[in-house]
């Protein structure tokens, strides 16, 4: 009896010790991107609030959310997800709503709701960055200079393997743009059966040369290894490999597809209050601007733009590497989340069937 008493006392003691340490678990995409968030958000957040941030990675943080929420065993408090996933998960009631009034105003007093770019604040999600899917090539392995998305699909002019994300999203849009569809007509055409056929027909032309990737950290690796000569990639990953790791990689902005990454809180998150605090802190003007000095993703707040200066090496100007820079937008597509929320299942099914053929 006495032993049990000692044991339970010890256990309660541990339990108290555990709750005394406040924490919040943030799930993101890994690699250079998570690193930029650790530097710009997690460390300053812990320094200010003494709440420990636990960082976890996934190939796509949206995928574990449904399983966790439905099983009633949610282990993550904040997840960093793509636009269409944020909308879909919110519609299905899997996310907590986020009151925009918790977001701090801009330094000049502009309320957050006006400071964020259009669409960056949703019922259950707050955007932190604007990123884009671009294609990049290895300067050492490509003869000549690819300049347009059509060059990516032209294995006659630029021989060699191509890396593409193993997913219908972005792949089909790029195929259409390479086939000569102007950016503003892409979704209109992709909404018709003929348009889908056209995109797959274009993909057919390079199918044998494609190496498929799934995690964002793979394309810079594939390019650096020479396993592929060109690859689609998240633009920040290429920037990181090219500038921080001095790899001979070059981004082609033609045909880039812009998208938001947003913070969401799964329903039933164990540290919901801390999660709210974290999101408010991380999407403040300064935090967003800080992140942009670690990786070339555009901040989702207008007021952060002016604060973005040099890369952490102190000599690389960040502005021209941003997907939102004027020069990079000449042929850019903005991801249509509504289209993908609707057609994700159908097109991925077709895509899988096409892959297996």
């Amino acid at each position, binding site marked *: 009896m006495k032993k049990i008493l000692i044991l339970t006392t010890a256990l309660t003691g541990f339990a108290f010790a555990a709750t005394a340490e406040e924490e919040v678990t943030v799930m993101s995409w890994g690699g250079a991107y998570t690193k930029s968030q650790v530097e710009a958000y997690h460390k300053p957040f812990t320094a200010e609030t003494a709440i420990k941030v636990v960082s976890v990675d996934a190939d796509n943080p949206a995928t574990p959310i449904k399983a966790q929420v439905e099983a009633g065993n949610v282990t993550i408090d904040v997840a960093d997800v793509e636009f269409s996933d944020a909308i879909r998960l919110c*519609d299905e009631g899997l996310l907590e709503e986020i009151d925009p009034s918790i977001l701090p105003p801009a330094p000049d007093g502009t309320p957050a709701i006006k400071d964020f770019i259009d669409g960056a604040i949703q019922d259950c999600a707050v955007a932190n960055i604007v990123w884009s899917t671009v294609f990049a090539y290895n300067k050492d392995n490509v003869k000549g200079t690819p300049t347009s998305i059509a060059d990516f699909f032209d294995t006659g002019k630029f021989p060699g393997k191509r890396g593409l994300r193993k997913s219908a999203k972005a792949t089909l849009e790029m195929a259409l743009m390479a086939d000569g569809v102007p950016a503003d007509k892409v979704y209109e055409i992709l909404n018709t059966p003929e348009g889908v056929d056209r995109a797959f027909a274009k993909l057919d032309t390079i199918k044998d040369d494609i190496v498929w990737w799934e995690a964002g950290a793979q394309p810079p690796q594939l390019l650096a290894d020479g396993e592929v000569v060109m690859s689609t990639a998240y633009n920040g990953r290429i920037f990181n490999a090219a500038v921080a790791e001095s790899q001979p990689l070059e981004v082609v902005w033609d045909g880039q597809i812009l998208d938001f990454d947003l913070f969401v809180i799964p*329903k039933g998150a164990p540290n919901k209050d801390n999660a709210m605090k974290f999101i408010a802190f991380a999407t403040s003007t300064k935090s967003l601007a800080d992140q942009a000095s670690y990786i070339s993703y555009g901040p989702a707040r207008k007021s952060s733009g002016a604060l973005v200066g040099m890369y952490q090496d102190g000599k690389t100007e960040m502005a021209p590497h941003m997907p939102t820079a004027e020069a990079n937008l000449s042929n850019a597509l903005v991801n249509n989340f509504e289209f993908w929320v609707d057609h994700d299942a159908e097109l*991925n099914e077709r895509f*899988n069937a096409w892959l*297996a053929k």
Partner: protein
Amino acid sequence: MVDATTNPTNTGLTTADGKPLKAALAHAQARSRRRAFLLVLPLLLFIVITFIVPIGQMLKRSVYNDGFTVQRNLTTGEKTPIMVNLAKWFDENPAGTEPDEAAFAALVEDLKQLKELRAAGQAGTRINYELSGSRSLFTQGARKAKKLQPPYKEALLELNPKWNDPKLWQVMRSASSNFTGTFFLAATDRTRDADGNIQSVEENRQIYLKLFWRTLKLSVLITVLTLILAYPIAHLLATLPLRYSNLLMIFVLLPFWTSLLVRTTSWMILLQSQGVLNDAMVAMGLISDGNRIQMMYNQTGTVIAMTHILLPFMVLPLYSVMRPINPSYVRAARSLGATSWTAFRRIYFPQTVPGIAAGGLLVFILAVGYYITPALVGGSDGTLISNLIAFHMQKSLNWSMAAALASLLLGGILILYWLYDRLVGIDNLKLG
């Protein structure tokens, strides 16, 4: 004892304390049976909870989906019926009835409720499984439902003409009942048209039957390959003196103890087009730099890596039946004039069949459900059905579809197991 059973009267044998022997024996046996049952009870409970119940749930999910009938509040766990008005209309009107104003009024009423409950996405997703592009129909409809004025049919059609699609009404009718065979149809590349007739899906969307077939083919191939590789190894292990064979056994077991991921990625490093093997062949001048052989991210990669990973599962059962085989049988056959081939075929081989049966079954069943290796090295044409199940579990989040595919896989395996039992006989199986 014989007396006691044939002559159950008081004159029968009794125990020392005067009870009839038969009753005392039955009592003692019942007690020991109870004790034995209590001993296996934890295992029984464990199997029921971790095996039988989840499989039952999976089977249920493959034919049961209440996404269009019930909304579950995830915080309170409260369940609210949805789409009730529409379900009532479906009950009152037989299949194939042209939706009238009453139907649209019921629909609008339900859409309003969806908006309040934030369930439009859930209901739309359920319909979207069968009719792509209809999800936004529900989210948009629910957003605007409050402002709609009668006549509702015109109002909704003005909002989106898709509401008049007969296929949509067919799908909504079938979804308003919780039990459905739709997912099994879809899992065999079939669908229903607007009139409810079963037909194949368009050719460029057929995938599942092809993948089931490929999974079966590759699993058989891998089983055969492991058998060819493992048989001589096991024979060597069984015939060498113990101190050498133990050392060799470690070589077989070492990869078995290594993490699956490590072994798979090692194969990637070896076989990729800029990998060790290709580099070596280029350096030796066997192939030119431009013609490197693609051995990874396709079927070849899947077969090579899985054969290696599953090899120990074949070696160990074979070894365990070969070890006790008495070498003097083969010697006797030889001394009676059999050639070495005849001695092997008639004497040695038949004695190893139980090991082949066990190893073959083990490797085959593991291969059919293999997931990680094909996902990593399969590329586009080396993926198996389990990868599609994972896709529906993790990415498309269509769990009913995943359950239907998994149920078909389970059913297929059980049929194969039954065939196997008829052909080889499960009693012939020996795991060691």
